[in-house]
């Protein structure tokens, strides 16, 4: 075996960052094609109603307008989509199509598409559309939606319950019966949304002369969309190319099927010219998927020593008028009830899930699907138990976290853990944050009327999912990835791979991994991603699979090419390939390290002088490899976070002072990039804990749908984040890497909520709702 050349594990900088720093990004929003037209949509201004009149005649003749489409003229070109999966037994959703035909079902539901020579002209023409909607009572609240006699949120469903499930261990009731202590709580987690800085963007370009559809699409999953466009528009997959260039943020939001993107493709197919749709920020808020929106009732049973016996959880989550496609809107709630209590030795559990339709924007998968909810509920209850038993938050967790030698372990909810490091993480965090000193400071400051709080939250994160995640449910979502690596005639290396780049550093780590297999430097490895015509098919980016699955794919492809190069070198050199290795851009003697022939020379001979090779030699210097995880269904990671806050009890304003993370993502390929994934993830967890919420009134109107009104975390409000690592590689792969992109988001909000409640504790106040706005804190304090 060739020893590692040690680029894996190094903090290599991202070469593709240089383009962005020079203003040379290549985003879909930057693309202008010849004869391109711009799309704008007339949207429903109300949450529910019937279209009684629609007149587009004036818009159709407005300046610059090329074509106006309504449901009648557009929807026939697309097979409707339904967001259900077979493995979520009994789930239901109405079918969706591009434009509303008779009913509008949320504020923002697209009704008319106008194509014009400029976006401004298309928007002007939208003003000329006569749309009369007869208002109906909207289903706004999830609990009310389930009351008998409430109208249905959409057509094609027999109740407002999208999906229900129950997980239960046999001894659950007994566990609560013999418990020495029971703590309980009711929690509300607000709706929020991704707010990627580059909005959703697409340029669909159909060429009728060849039947070729090219779609330039700001998505993290190009192959999924290649399949969607082919099937829903009746095209052969080979004639559909999806190109995802630079993407201005994604975070799960850009892998769902949206009405507007489908409409852009449909319009390009009909017009035979490029159609561009870029959501403006106002329409992003009423059309990008929203996230979370849960009400959770939970209790926890403990023995006299504070040992956790069981949890009993009921989660009601509200998802909009349809389940999203093709991944559904059920995965979030499903993970909420399965991740409860996951870090702990908790033998018994009951989890109930109700996924409910209403007339709002659809919710679906967003970074750390379900994790922040399960973590916040579990850790709030653990803190309540610690308070009841007068135990330090570290001590109660020390007593309950899974022991580091207790693996493999199956959780009460059925998750299989290969090996985690909770106890070591807990110890490391305690030391890193200077816990005792912070507590002493907290006590001293309280005497001065300053209320600081410390909150901790251990977590597990689901990464590297296999086909059990979507594939078994019938979704055409790839659980495998593919790579093609070639040695060029000049001896450079090119890797085309199916995992994609959104700035997290995918291309950089793939270059590091490939470089180590071929004895070159990462600089010598060019990586191509995000183009279905030029890379093999695969799952791309979701559920933290780029490093673990994509990285393993690249490693195995690299080793295959390594063998091909060594075989050819052995034939050229008439040497036993067992005695050869690759290093420093050359084939070397394995024992002495002495150079025998450079890669450039091998490339030259194989390409330009194959006639000089021994008879029967194979001059192929390209290797293809696909890889799908076959071991554990997921590679779980673990870690723990801590938050330090100060609550101004006069104003209710929370200041985030500092944040700490100890994280174990297995083998670390690039420490710089791993840390920045964690930091970005933490801030995406803190945002919804403190600021972010999609606010709706009781008519179903979103009342803060602009970037001036919806609060995103900004630099001045975010803390510095200190990070430490433990490395427990998975043995399922050669590489040993797990995912890391969602770890920060998973537990940051839980730690912050525990910290705020720690600050409020001496005042007898407690908050159980996010975001923890000043008003809600003042309400908890009884000041308003």
């Amino acid at each position: 075996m060739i020893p590692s050349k040690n680029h894996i594990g190094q903090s290599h900088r991202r070469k593709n960052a240089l383009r962005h720093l020079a203003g040379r990004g290549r985003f879909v929003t930057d693309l202008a094609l010849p004869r391109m037209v711009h799309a704008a949509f007339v949207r429903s201004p109300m949450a529910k109603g019937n279209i009684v009149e629609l007149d587009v005649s004036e818009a159709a003749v407005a300046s610059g307008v090329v074509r106006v489409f309504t449901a009648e003229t557009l929807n026939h070109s697309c097979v409707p989509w339904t967001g259900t999966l077979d493995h979520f037994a009994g789930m239901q959703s109405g079918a969706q199509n591009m434009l509303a035909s008779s009913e509008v079902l949320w504020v923002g539901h697209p009704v008319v598409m106008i194509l014009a020579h400029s976006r401004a002209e298309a928007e002007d023409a939208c003003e000329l559309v006569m749309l009369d909607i007869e208002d109906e009572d909207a289903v706004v609240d999830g609990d009310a939606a389930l009351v008998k006699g409430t109208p249905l949120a959409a057509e094609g469903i027999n109740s407002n319950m999208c999906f229900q499930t129950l997980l239960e261990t046999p001894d659950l009731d007994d566990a609560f019966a013999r418990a020495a202590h029971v703590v309980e709580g009711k929690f509300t987690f607000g709706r929020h949304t991704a707010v990627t800085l580059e909005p959703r963007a697409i340029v669909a370009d159909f060429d009728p002369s060849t039947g070729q559809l090219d779609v330039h699409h700001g998505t993290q999953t190009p192959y999924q969309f290649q399949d969607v466009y082919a099937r829903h528009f009746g095209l052969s997959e080979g004639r559909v190319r999806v190109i995802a260039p630079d993407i201005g943020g994604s975070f799960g939001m850009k892998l769902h099927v949206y009405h507007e993107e489908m409409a852009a493709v449909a319009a390009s197919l009909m017009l035979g010219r490029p159609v561009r749709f870029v959501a403006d920020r106002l329409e992003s808020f009423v059309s990008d998927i929203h996230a979370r929106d849960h009400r959770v009732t939970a209790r926890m049973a403990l023995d006299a020593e504070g040992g956790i016996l069981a949890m009993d959880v009921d989660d009601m989550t509200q998802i909009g008028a349809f389940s999203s496609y093709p991944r559904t809107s059920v995965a979030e709630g499903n993970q909420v009830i399965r991740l409860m209590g996951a870090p702990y030795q908790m033998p018994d559990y009951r989890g109930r899930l109700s996924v409910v339709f209403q007339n709002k924007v659809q919710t679906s998968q967003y970074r750390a699907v379900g994790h922040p909810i399960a973590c916040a509920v579990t850790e709030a209850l653990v803190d309540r138990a610690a308070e009841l038993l007068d135990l330090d938050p570290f001590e109660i967790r020390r007593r309950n976290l899974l022991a580091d030698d207790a693996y493999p372990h199956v959780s009460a909810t059925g998750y299989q853990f290969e090996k985690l490091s909770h106890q070591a993480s807990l110890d490391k965090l305690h030391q890193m944050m200077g816990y005792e000193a912070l507590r002493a400071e907290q006590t001293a400051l309280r005497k001065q009327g300053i209320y600081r709080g410390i909150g901790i939250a251990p977590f597990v994160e689901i990464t590297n999912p296999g086909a059990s995640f979507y594939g078994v449910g019938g979704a055409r979502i790839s659980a495998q990835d593919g790579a093609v690596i070639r040695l060029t005639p000049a001896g450079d290396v090119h890797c085309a791979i199916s995992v994609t780049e959104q700035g997290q550093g995918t291309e950089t780590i793939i270059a590091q991994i490939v470089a180590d297999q071929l004895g070159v430097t990462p600089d010598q490895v060019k990586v191509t991603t995000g183009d279905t015509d030029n890379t093999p098919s695969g799952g791309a980016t979701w559920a933290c699979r780029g490093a673990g699955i994509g990285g393993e794919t690249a490693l195995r492809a690299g080793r295959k090419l390594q063998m091909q190069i060594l075989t050819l070198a052995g034939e050229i050199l008439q040497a036993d390939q067992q005695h050869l290795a690759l290093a420093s851009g050359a084939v070397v003697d394995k024992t002495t390290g002495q150079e025998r022939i450079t890669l450039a020379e091998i490339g030259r001979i194989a390409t330009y002088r194959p006639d000089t090779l021994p008879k029967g030699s194979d001059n192929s210097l390209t290797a293809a490899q696909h890889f799908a995880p076959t071991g554990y269904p997921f590679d779980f990671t673990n870690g723990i976070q801590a938050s330090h806050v100060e609550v101004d009890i006069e104003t209710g304003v929370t200041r985030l002072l500092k944040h700490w993370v100890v994280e174990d993502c297995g083998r670390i390929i690039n420490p710089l990039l791993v840390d920045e994934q964690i930091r970005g993830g933490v801030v995406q967890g803190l945002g919804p804990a403190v600021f972010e919420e999609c606010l709706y009134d009781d008519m179903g109107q979103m009342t803060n749908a602009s970037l001036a009104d919806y609060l995103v975390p900004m630099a001045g409000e975010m803390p510095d984040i200190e990070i430490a690592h433990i490395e427990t590689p998975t043995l399922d792969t050669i590489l040993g890497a797990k995912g890391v992109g969602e770890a920060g988001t998973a537990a940051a909000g839980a730690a912050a909520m525990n910290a705020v409640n720690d600050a409020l504790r001496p005042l007898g106040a407690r908050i159980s709702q996010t975001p923890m706005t000043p008003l809600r804190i003042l309400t908890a304090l009884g000041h308003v």
Partner: protein
Amino acid sequence: MKTDITLTVNGDAVREAVEPRTSLADLLRDNLQLTGTHLGCEMGACGACLVMLDGAPVHACLVLAVQASGHKVETIEGLNESGLIKDLQERFHDRNALQCGFCTNGMLMSAQALLSENPMPSRPEIREALSGNYCRCTGYESIVDAISATAKMRSGQTGEVS
């Protein structure tokens, strides 16, 4: 009804006919293909469209193209080619102070404006100076580090990030 405007963009004399409602951002991106200036909110909240107008950062989405007539505009492309912010760009690269890259243009503009007014800003001052720059990817700390390191290097101290 289009209006003729003349302005200097990245040192080049530019003459264009624009509609009165055309924003400076749209002029730069659509007419001049200077796509390094990004649009994130079109209401002056996110900072992705910051450019230098006569040396001071402005939101190109809030300035009309006709208002820029007779003035000097510098975009990220111009600043990049001038070499003026090479050190800042290098510290951003070292520190991985960008992920998707969509906010980066605006971050560099704010950082350059801050450092020209306050050569040795504290970390809270840097965070304050970025109060109009939204980044969804990094969590900001690496950006603060990169700007802080640039300030130290420009003032002759080491660029070590503490």
